């Protein structure tokens, strides 16, 4: 006969929420998580470095948005990141794991740089348009092959897109060598630094903040288009259905393979456009670090925003803000970059963890259960 077991009652009870939380509550939880993460990272900073956390946070804010120049750099980088994340959205929504944004950015950047170098005599609007189109095509081509192989032979797109990155990096090295300027520097240097051909022009200038605005307009337009595409277009609907269940998609008469190729080409093209934004709107040069890991960071942005391109605006700003802030801490207090990366890690941990509280409720057992 079974012995009667005496375990203690669980103190914490977790259960899936019966109904969905209203949006404002869900966002409330996320905001609370953000502030909690600041407190925890403050404690960590104190323990590790003995510095006053308030001062450290102030440095972060100062480093990210302390001057209008810094604000602009933060905005500019956030826009590039946003563009990549927006590009990833359709692929990821379809459960096509596009890890190849790095490569798609690079080939887009190469295409833009090539236009700047070889067509610098074209009138500015036409040159810019050529750059945009060629970067879109380059990124699209980079997405086309993994998509085609996935559709035809069901190859693993994660590995395929990842390996395409290495090809793109090698290709970039080749072009850097080809376009080397000045000779022997092993860099391309600032392209068209005299005439500024192919640079995104100033939208409004406050003297030294060059190129202010156009990145923002291009990327926000793309974001808006993507939002409409994903939520209101027939293609967007196909993507959502395929992402949920391929069988349902086939059942509904969706040609899944065609949709795969089309979507990944689109996704790659937008990532290629991010390469254009990075070259023409920011660095005006190209190197193997033009993508700089942003193709991966953007995956976090896309997931955090649950593939909603408008929400991605918030998260790309947050991530870039943290990055800039972390760099500022590192240089101001002579801390190693790792400490500042820890802070980013803590904040991301809290943000991702908060999703649990959005989906589950937690209650504490008052211990009445057993002795009625």
């Amino acid at each position, binding site marked *: *006969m*079974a*012995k*009667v*077991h*005496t*375990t*203690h*009652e*669980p103190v914490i*009870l977790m*259960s*899936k*929420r*019966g*109904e*969905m939380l209203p949006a404002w509550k869900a966002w409330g939880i996320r905001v609370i998580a953000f502030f909690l993460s600041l407190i925890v990272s403050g404690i960590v900073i104190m323990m590790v470095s003995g510095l006053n956390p308030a001062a450290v946070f102030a440095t972060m804010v100062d480093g990210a948005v302390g001057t209008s120049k810094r604000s602009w750099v933060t905005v500019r980088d956030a826009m590039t990141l946003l563009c990549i994340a927006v590009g990833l959205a359709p692929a990821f929504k379809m459960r096509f794991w596009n890890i190849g944004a790095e490569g798609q950015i690079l080939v887009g950047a190469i295409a833009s740089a090539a236009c700047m170098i070889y067509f610098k005599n074209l009138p500015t609007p036409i040159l810019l348009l050529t750059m945009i189109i060629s970067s879109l095509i380059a990124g699209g081509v980079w997405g086309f092959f993994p998509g085609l192989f996935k559709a035809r032979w069901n190859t693993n797109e994660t590995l395929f897109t990842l390996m395409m990155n290495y090809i793109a990096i090698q290709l970039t090295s080749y072009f850097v060598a080809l376009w080397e300027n000045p000779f022997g520097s092993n860099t391309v240097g600032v392209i068209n630094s005299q005439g500024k051909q192919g640079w995104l022009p100033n939208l409004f200038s406050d003297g030294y903040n060059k190129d202010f605005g156009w990145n923002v307009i291009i990327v926000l337009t793309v974001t808006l288009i993507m939002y*409409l595409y994903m939520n*209101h*277009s*027939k*293609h*967007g*609907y*196909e993507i*959502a*259905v395929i992402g*949920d*269940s391929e*069988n*349902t998609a*086939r*059942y*509904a*008469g*969706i*040609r899944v393979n065609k949709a795969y190729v089309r979507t990944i080409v689109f996704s790659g093209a937008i990532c290629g456009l991010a390469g254009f934004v990075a070259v023409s709107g920011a660095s005006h040069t190209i190197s193997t670090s033009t993508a700089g890991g942003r193709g991966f960071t953007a995956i976090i942005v896309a997931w955090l925003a649950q593939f909603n391109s408008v929400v991605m605006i918030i998260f790309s700003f947050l991530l870039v803000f943290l990055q800039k802030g972390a760099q500022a801490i590192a240089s101001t207090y002579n801390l190693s970059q790792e400490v500042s990366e820890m802070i980013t890690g803590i904040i991301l941990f809290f943000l991702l963890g908060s999703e649990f509280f959005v989906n589950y*409720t937690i*209650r504490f057992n008052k211990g*009445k*259960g*057993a002795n*009625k």
Partner: protein
Amino acid sequence: MIALASCAIKMENVTKRFGKVVANAHINLELREGEILSLLGENGSGKTTLMNQLSGIYFPDEGQIYVHDKPVTIASPKDAFDNGIGMIHQHFKLVDVFTATENIVLGLEGEGKFDLKAASAKISEICEKYGFDIKPDQKIYDMSVSQKQTVEIVKVLFRGADILILDEPTAVLTPQETDKLFDIMRAMKKDGKSLIIITHKLHEVLDVSDRVAVLRKGEYIGDVLTKDANQQSLTDMMVGHSVTLNIDRPEPKDPKPRLEIKNLTVYDELGVKRLDDVTFTAMGGEILGIAGVAGSGQKELLESIAGLYPIRSGEILFHDPEGGTQKDLVGMDPLDIKKTGVGMAFVPEDRLGMGLVGTMGMTGNMMLRSWRKGKGLFVDKKEPEQLANTIWKDLEVVTPSTSFPVRRMSGGNVQKVLVGREIAQEPAVLMSAYAVRGLDINTSYTIYNLLTAEKMKGVAVIYVGEDLDVLLELCDRLVVLCGGQVSGVVDARKITKEEVGLLMTQHRKEGA
């Protein structure tokens, strides 16, 4: 509720909430020593939730559980086992590449080296005692559904359970297998075990149990001795008001060939023949039932017709009710079929994995059939929204809104959404696979009535079912499948259940 025999399990005032939803409200349930208790209730009435609190999956918010009259705390599946409670879940939790023995001992704790031989011997002993037909060293992937279920039962017996809970155990079994399971349950009862069976099928309740406890909307309605109950009285208790239990079967209306299947043969990905020279005709204005043991080719047949399964040879001829020429659907995908103007509705077996998009609400799911409509890049959401609202109202779907994800609805409501959408297409052919699987009685009858109404509109309805009683009451003709072949096309009004059962296991003689 005065217990004469002592209680194997007594639940006192048990309450379980999920957020605002009260799944179980102050339930008092008794399982007497050595009895078989049926736990009966509509979809979402809280049966499984209640049992999960006995098996340690959920912990009650309020209330007390007694096992053999001693108060206990069951906070984990391990606690449940320590108290001798074993639950056989609806979905088997077995490792396919392991043997029966390996699955049974999986997760057991013990000192030193584990003696697999001794375990194997003990399993053989249990099997012999109750007449189970599994071998300890047989791999799970070699087993039939019923054998897998047996492994689950042996698993809990092996761990010394004397209280067994079976969650809808007959949902996946043939009539013969069900009978065998009931014999096993009776043998276990004779051996002094106490059992709870959760089921929707009333004739099974009456067949196997000693007492019936009824839940409705999370509340305990009462219990009756099985000998004092009948189908009608149980249904009334369960639903709360009187329900008619007879399926209305009008004569077929002007039956004319609608879909002619000729010599259809298909192979699966691994090159195994799934359908072998299948020939039959589905008429407009009748319900054609497809009977057969699970996995006899039902799924492949419907998917072939729907354009979702590669066809090796044969013809699928569609006769347009509006007149015109016959169309061969072989080689078309669902989009081609739609473009050809064939009104084909399909309620697949895998509702959320094929028929619906789980993460979308009703409106998004209505769009599955209409999203391509209209020119231009953008989808029209207004029409699907209206359709969703109509179905929501007409079929009494329980959902907070038309945007609430369907996968979070209960099974019956999911099926209403799916069937409602398919009927709204005004099809010429309506195929359904296991349309009432897992549904409560009320919803099942709603579905039967909807199908019959389609039949009276002149639609060719194809109904793949597993409950022979229903097939014989609902359908006009039956096609019996056995191992991918048609073993008989019979008049459902004239044939008996036993004869169909024989056809289901009898292969057609070759040659002749």
